[in-house]
């Protein structure tokens, strides 16, 4: 059972959290000018790095999205940041 620090609610247990996506994806728009390959990459491609990763997570009870840096091999959490302000990770 992992413990993730929600920037709004503090440390909470793993089942309260939802992995959303890797950080840094931008939605390509407008649709009419987006190639099939660019769209597929947006929809599906991920870095899936071993080691330190930066991801968007949601704390389900408060609903807030936030950024989290963690290690995908040791599961250590390095830091979190609200999407609302510029606090360092």
């Amino acid at each position: 059972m992992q413990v993730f620090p929600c920037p709004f609610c503090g440390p909470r247990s793993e089942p309260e959290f939802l992995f959303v996506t890797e950080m840094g994806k931008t939605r390509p728009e407008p649709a009419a000018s987006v190639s099939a390959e660019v769209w597929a990459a947006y929809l599906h491609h991920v870095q899936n790095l071993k080691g330190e990763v930066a991801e968007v997570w949601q704390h389900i009870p408060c609903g807030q999205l936030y950024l989290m840096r963690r290690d995908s091999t040791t599961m250590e959490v390095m830091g979190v940041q609200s999407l609302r302000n510029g606090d360092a990770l």
Partner: protein
Amino acid sequence: MNFTFDGMDLTGRPGDSLASALVRADVRIVNRSFKYHRPRGLWGAWVEEPNAIVDVTLNGIRTPNCRATTTPLLAGMKVESVNSALIARCDPMAVLDRFARFIPAAFYYKTFLWPSWRLFEPTIRKMAGLGRMDGALGFAPEAPQRHDGAGVLVIGAGPAGLQAALDAANAGQDVLLVDDRDTPGGSLIDRAEAVDGQSAADWSTAMIAALSAAGGRYLPATTAFGAYDHGMFLLAERRRFPLPPALIRLRADRVILASGAIERPLTFIDNDRPGVMSLHAGLSYLNRHATLPGKHIAILSTAEAEPAARQLRAAGASVEVIEAGEGRAEVGAVHWRSGHLRGLTLRDGRRIDCDTVLASGGWTPAVHLHSQTGGKLDWREDIQAYVPRADRPKIITIGAAAGTYATDDARAEAALAAKGNRPTIRTDLPVRKAWPRLGQSSRAWVDFQNDVTVKDVELAGRENMRSVEHLKRYTTLGMANDQGKIANMAGLATMAAIRQVPISQVGTTTFRPPFDPVSLATLAGPRREARFSPPKRLALEAVHRTAGATFREYGGWLRPTVYTDIRAEVRAAREHVTLFDASPLGKIDVYGPDAARFLDFIYYNTMGTLKPGRARYGFLLTEGGIVLDDGILFRLTDNHFSVSCSSSHVDQVANILDLWRQDQFDPSRVFIQDATPHWATLTLAGPKARALMARLDFGIPLDETSMPHLSIVQKDGMRIARVSFTGDCSYEISVRATHAATLWHRIVTAGRNFGLALQGVEALAILRMEKGLIFVGRDTDGTTMPHDLGFPAPRDKKQAEFVGKRSLFTQTANRSDRMQLVGLSCDGAALPVGGHVLAKGASDSQGYVTSAAYSPTLAKPIALALIAGGLSRMGEAVEVYHLGQRRTATICPACFVDPEWERLNA
């Protein structure tokens, strides 16, 4: 205390374990081995015991695979050995041992190829397995689960753990000491070792009292069996047999691991004979249970054993001590006749007469929890053991678990660890090597329970199964229910010798939880039956039950299926008016200055042009363009919408809205709130709905101009909406959930003159099918896009960006043979839902029936189907395949009743 073992009536004493009671009763053969059905006796006295696995029946409850050494004796227990064809003393299957040379490790991979494995398998299966479970028992009693935490978790209440816990508590730290024994002291008690001039028991009890006085806590009978991510430990707290232990989920700021060490066997020929026992276990039976493991004892030990011999002699045994290990004596033969150990012959020719051999091949530190957290091990040549490397920032290992066996040194380490310092004390207590000898012609056992011998390890080496993981998997070494606690080191050492490399280069297999098998009931806890995943209940459930409804679960909600008769309910909805509890329909409020722009982006259909008080049907897509939900959006005011999504999708839709809101919008300008549980919604549908509404007199105008189809009015805390899922005129009246019953009874009373009928979910399913209205997830699948459902307009025309837009134009999305929703008409009985649609005479699936029923309105069967290119195949005769049978049906438009939608405003 009376109990039976394999049918023998025996007596034990209070405080006995099953094992100590068997020792007391001089029962030597307690089980048979897994493969060769060799007679087996007790080797250990606690969790390391590999042999004495028994089924215990108490009060009619049979608990399989109990370890006799850790199971307390209770009066009336019926104890049965698990691996004998009859009883442990007399097992006809023992004949297998004579064929041992033909069935070495992994023999089964090399034979049973002809005619087929399935022919041999049933026999092999019957021979395998340990205990017998009672499949008719049902659930074991529920196990409690709780959370706990501590500043310092000390694991193990032997001398090191007791000292560390007390010192840390005295220093003001928040200490929790856990130990798997019922009483403190650990190995001190087994050895009856005096400490500071006190007996082991007195000193340990005093330490616990002092710990308690200093504010520390002590949890006896609790096994820390697993270490997990982020510092979580799982603990099992024993309860009265056979109740499953309680589960404790525990986090600590730091951990002091004082889990002790496990004595290793000596690996000589026939070292598995009953009567060959761990020296430490022998002492444990004497000192904990006041019973001697034998009368004439030979001690074979790789370390100093005179103190042990003195204790055994003092209790009345004759004892001969033989120094074992490198450069010392080695056993040549074990003499075993008619069920009894008679003595040993050493390789130097000496003959020792004895009825019991107490053997010690050195110690293996119990590093399991350290290793489970990913901690590495270092090999120590002087004590021939792996010890934890100091690589876990929050875990300090001390005492025998760290290879520090002497009590004084262990306590000194404890004092350091209590302060948070890593001890550097190294006991200089060299142990003589005593690893298995290679190339012998007879068998010496490495893994007792799984019958893995030195020869098997040699065979694995010969066949290149040389990685420790291959060795384990090929021979099953270490995979028995003791998980190799006593076997693994001898196995590794043998493989090192075969590979001619140091043991440190062989490595170990991965230590997996649990340290000791743990009841499945303990881990499942209260999640069972209704509490496994509780269904959602309606505010009006009791009212529905009174009205005679039968219930089923739909999309997580327990809802009325039918009150009287499905067809009658359908007819009432077409001819008069029905009352339906639609409370689970989603009611997600979306408000704020950007709400309209937000919903335009979220929904396939344009919602921003909606006027306040009006409603529109629309689709919510995934970014992949797939229809995720359909629903009706109400615009209550300029900046306030209510999203009425499908009842089974509410949580999902609310969350998706919130994700998009935070990702693509200014979250201070649009807000989402799921208000579904706040409201109860009652639906009136049918040609007399408007008249009944007028009678109910909610004080709102009902004419077509004021309240047309797809409109909403808020009045007196109610929301009244004109929408229809049946095709007839229909009103949804939503009130605060607490007012639902009042409204219900008011409607029922007023409805008497209008032929009002109560309507369940099944009737609704037919009513909407008659109109070709879909249930998303049932009439759509994970490939369905809105233009497959006859809604191409926004795809073709909507200029603005919306979720999933680009995906509606992929190569696949543009295909003409997409699966499209159509109707199917046929004669005879209703079509089978799940039947597949085939072109006439063909046999490849072109789609399937998603919904089907007999339509009481039309007096004929109707069906909805997803069919490849279906929208352009109207009138085509197709076949419907179901479980080998074929029927003919005709593709038709999905709307069967009133295709002009004239009833809507009638």
